[in-house]
């Protein structure tokens, strides 16, 4: 039974834990500065280093138009590792034991962590769009399609935060978790249509690359941002819904089983 009081308490818990996680960025501004510089650097490097070499076969678009949606996906994926590192850090320092001894929902700590990471991702995504526009990117699909694209990339980041949370709860050591994260993130980011067209890859890789969530979502982003269409959006949402259902279940179960 869900009564009004416990609903209010539950929301307060998640808000308290979210703000606790966000305060880190206020207290160590360098953390926010450097974690923003990194994706901007990637955007500049990809645009000016690879931009000339990679010929995009999709019509007359410039590389920045092709690149920005891909970079947004990369930002979302790299950003999601913060979820597992933060959780592993809390585990190793005894914070999770303290939280688990408090009368709060088992999902509150995870919800607080993923919500904080969502807000941080929001900040970085907006920053990247601004930098992208300085480099010549233009939304050609109109305002609402642009908003939908941003919402989609944030939803993507949020669902990957839950994968990351599940990994953090199993690996538990902050340094190991960082290394472990790149093992699954790099193939997903690079064996995708984020930076190069999938058609340029060897055929055995194309089957994977064309259907994995990063490619499906980046295609949906391009459709929304460049042509104002909604191609691939349904498939992308399906992927995210699947990831959320599976990994929220797995993460909460792992959290309950911490010993």
């Amino acid at each position, binding site marked *: 039974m869900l009564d009004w009081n416990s609903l209010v*308490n539950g929301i*307060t*818990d998640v808000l*308290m*834990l979210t703000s*606790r996680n966000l*305060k*880190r960025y206020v*207290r*160590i501004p360098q953390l926010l500065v450097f974690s923003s510089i990194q994706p901007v650097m990637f955007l500049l490097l990809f645009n000016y280093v690879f931009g000339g070499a990679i010929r995009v076969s999709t019509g007359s678009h410039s590389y920045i138009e092709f690149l920005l949606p891909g970079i947004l996906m990369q930002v979302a994926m790299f950003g999601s590792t913060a979820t597992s590192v933060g959780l592993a850090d809390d585990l190793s*320092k*005894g*914070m999770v*034991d*303290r*939280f*688990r*001894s*408090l*009368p*709060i929902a088992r999902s509150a700590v995870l919800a607080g962590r993923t919500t904080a990471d969502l807000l941080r991702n929001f900040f970085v995504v907006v920053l990247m769009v601004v930098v992208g526009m300085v480099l010549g990117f233009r939304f050609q699909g109109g305002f609402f399609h642009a908003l939908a694209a941003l919402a989609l990339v944030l939803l993507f980041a949020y669902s990957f935060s839950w994968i990351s949370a599940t990994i953090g709860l199993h690996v538990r050591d902050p340094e190991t978790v960082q290394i472990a994260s790149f093992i699954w993130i790099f193939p997903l980011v690079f064996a995708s249509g984020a930076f190069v067209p999938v058609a340029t890859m060897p055929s055995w890789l194309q089957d994977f690359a064309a259907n994995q969530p990063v490619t499906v979502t980046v295609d949906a982003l391009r459709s929304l941002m460049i042509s104002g269409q909604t191609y691939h959006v349904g498939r992308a949402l399906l992927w995210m819904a699947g990831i959320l259902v599976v990994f929220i279940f797995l993460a909460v179960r792992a959290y309950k089983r*911490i*010993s």
Partner: protein
Amino acid sequence: MDAIKVSGVSKSFGDVEALKKVVLSIPQGGIYALLGPNGAGKTTLIKIMTTLLKPDSGSVKVGGLDVVSQAVQVRKIIGFAGQFAAIDDHLTGRENLEMVGRLYHLGRRKARLRADEILRQLDLAGAADRTGRTYSGGMRRRLDLGASFITSPSILFLDEPTTGLDPRGRADLWDVIRELVVGGTTLLLTTQNLEEAEELAKQIAIIDRGRLIAEGTASELKERIGGSILEFRVQSGEQLERARDATRDLFSGNQAIDPQLGRISGSVASSTDALAQLVRRLDASGINIADIHLRRPTLNEVFLALTGRESE
């Protein structure tokens, strides 16, 4: 009603049996210590009591509530400070306490009020607005302890609250812990340190390899191995055997002999008598004493007496 009642609790991690059918009753009010070496099962037991772990078999009632089926209600009436000082490095001392208070659903104003009270009580008011990362080890421990009693819980659990502190920090924390139970709180703490258990606790339970092996007041436990330890060294090794024979009947149990150091030690029932006797006998036998002293038994010796082996 007992504050805590442990009935036949067992817990294994894979092949390792951490707890074996532990039975324990802890009365309301005052400090109770769970004493044992590293790996004895103290932390596992306290984690079961605080709902962080589920027992494989047996049951635990805390404040009359079952820790498995009524875990949520148990969490509302207890406070817990784990082995690590669980404070957020990036929040200030006050924010750390306020956050825990809010998570206990105290409400904004009440949480703030309690945070300030506790900071004063723990002598941390001057550091209230500094972030956790600037705190010393002792300050972190105190703040962590403060977070555990922000709701003034009726039952408080502290897992090795003074591990890693210097003697001064330890003594400061002892004072705080003693004050906490004045109002009738039941406080259960774990420790590896006999002196700490003796200083603080009315009742002590000794736990080893997952079993409860003794329970009683500090003096009751020490009586089991007899009063104090008398220890002396002879000047030359050849005299060791004669010294042992001459003093054998002064000790209440076996003599422990260290031939390398030329040292003999053992427990004595009446310490001053034994000391005087020992000096007279050795003098009469013409044995030269290099060093002699009386001391309290160590945890090792209580252990040795109770388990027949050294604690690790």
